[in-house]
């Protein structure tokens, strides 16, 4: 396959950046999108050019590092992570636009790499539980209702990739924060910090410069883990409940 790539190139945070066009031959349908970029980078390095910087780590869809916007869609046309997206989803001869996540809270570091540490600070302000460390606890020590376990698990699937922020016209981190709050607030293990968690995480989220939610639903439609929009409603409920309790 032959692919025309238009990739956002930006040498550093201060550079203005621009889209650059590359023609890439020898792409095979079974290549992952990242392998296709690896192929491009080998060519660029061979020509003495700077390779395209992009984030990646596990390459198996679980770490959430590999975020980029492909043809205007975070993680591209398939509902998965970029590392799990395969070139068979593109036609031979296709033109593919690749851009970094765009949000004030995620400044571009270089090319397709953005600084997502704002997410870490949201997590740091409440995305944990207080529990004795040491050996694994006895599994039956804390009973969890089936429905609560299911909800917690569904939300625990969030890998913090940031696709929700990238897709949201308001650059909002509500789906990410909601997944964390819903995951922990649904479980008995999260109950001691139930109120402070949601208050503090929302406060940090706002302070980091993420926008608010206008319920467009773009976040959930691109989430590779299918976190539902309803989680945002759960967080709103938890937030208002915590405020009432003071």
């Amino acid at each position, binding site marked *: 396959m032959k692919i025309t790539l*238009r990739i*956002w190139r930006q040498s550093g945070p201060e550079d203005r950046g621009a*889209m650059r066009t590359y023609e890439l031959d020898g792409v095979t349908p079974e290549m992952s999108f990242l392998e296709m970029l690896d192929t491009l980078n080998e060519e660029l390095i061979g020509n003495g050019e700077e390779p395209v910087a992009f984030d990646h780590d596990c390459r198996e869809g679980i770490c959430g590092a590999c975020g980029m*916007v492909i*043809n*205007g*869609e975070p993680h591209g046309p398939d509902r998965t992570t970029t590392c799990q997206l395969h070139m068979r989803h593109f036609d031979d001869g296709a033109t593919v*636009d690749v*851009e970094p996540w*765009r*949000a*004030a*809270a995620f400044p571009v570091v270089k090319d397709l790499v953005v600084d997502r540490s704002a997410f870490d600070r949201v*997590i*740091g*302000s409440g995305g*944990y539980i*207080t529990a004795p460390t040491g050996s694994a606890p006895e599994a039956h020590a804390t009973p969890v209702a089936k429905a609560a376990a299911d909800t917690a698990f569904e939300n625990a699937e969030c890998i913090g990739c940031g696709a929700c922020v990238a*897709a*949201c*016209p*308001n*650059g*909002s981190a509500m789906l990410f924060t909601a997944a964390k709050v819903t995951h922990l607030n649904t479980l008995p293990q999260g109950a001691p910090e139930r109120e*402070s968690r949601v208050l*503090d995480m*929302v*406060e940090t*989220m*706002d302070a980091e*410069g*993420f*926008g*608010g*939610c*206008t*319920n*467009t*639903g*773009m976040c959930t439609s691109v989430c590779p883990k299918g976190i*539902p*929009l*309803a989680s*945002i*409603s*759960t*967080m*709103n*409920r*938890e*937030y*208002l409940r915590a*405020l*009432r309790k*003071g």
Partner: protein
Amino acid sequence: MALATRTARGGRPERPPPTPVRLWRSTIGKKTVMAVSGALMLLYLVFHMLGNLKVFFGPDDMNGYAHWLRTVGEPVLHHEWFLWLARVGLLAAVVAHGVAAYQLSRRDIAARPVGYRHRRARTSYATRTMRWGGVILALFVVWHLLDLTTGHVNPNGEAGRPYENVVATFSTWYGNAIYGVAMVAVGLHVRHGFFSAAQTLGAGSVGRDRALRLTADALALVLTLGFLAVPIGVTTGIVE
């Protein structure tokens, strides 16, 4: 990580600001103000639409209803007090809704300073038009008050005679045009707004989302058609 952040932050402040202040400062809180004020206006719109349909029962029915509205609550309330209470409540709702919308919109736009080169139209029309649709509604409310409440821009403009005033408005082309655009705008605003408000107030759930969206669509359709029935009635001569 938990311990480190706790030490760094030194715990939460001893005395957090009062709840209304915290509510107004946070994005979720401000959105709650929008949802509650929007819901109040929506409730009003439903009764307003039903009241308007009185026009199909003739001048006595309509004008009698308008007169009755001024006597609601008597003798506990003075003449017209109920009406003024409703007006003050609605004014507060419009102001709170508009100010919160403005502040949140500024924040939302600032949170996405650079757009994508590869653009795609992705959200629904109703969702994309909430801001400008809201502005259109605010302007409409001003015109509407000058037309049918104070009578300043009404061709008839007689106090206590809403039936004749309504017929006068819809006997002009611009009256029909302004009103028509505004009622479509209301329908679109409610279509997204009702669902959005339910989400904001925490009523959304995986199992309930579809029902909420259908309710929003039905409500929007009933309101728009109900309001449009009046100018259509006048134009076609059913009401004269």
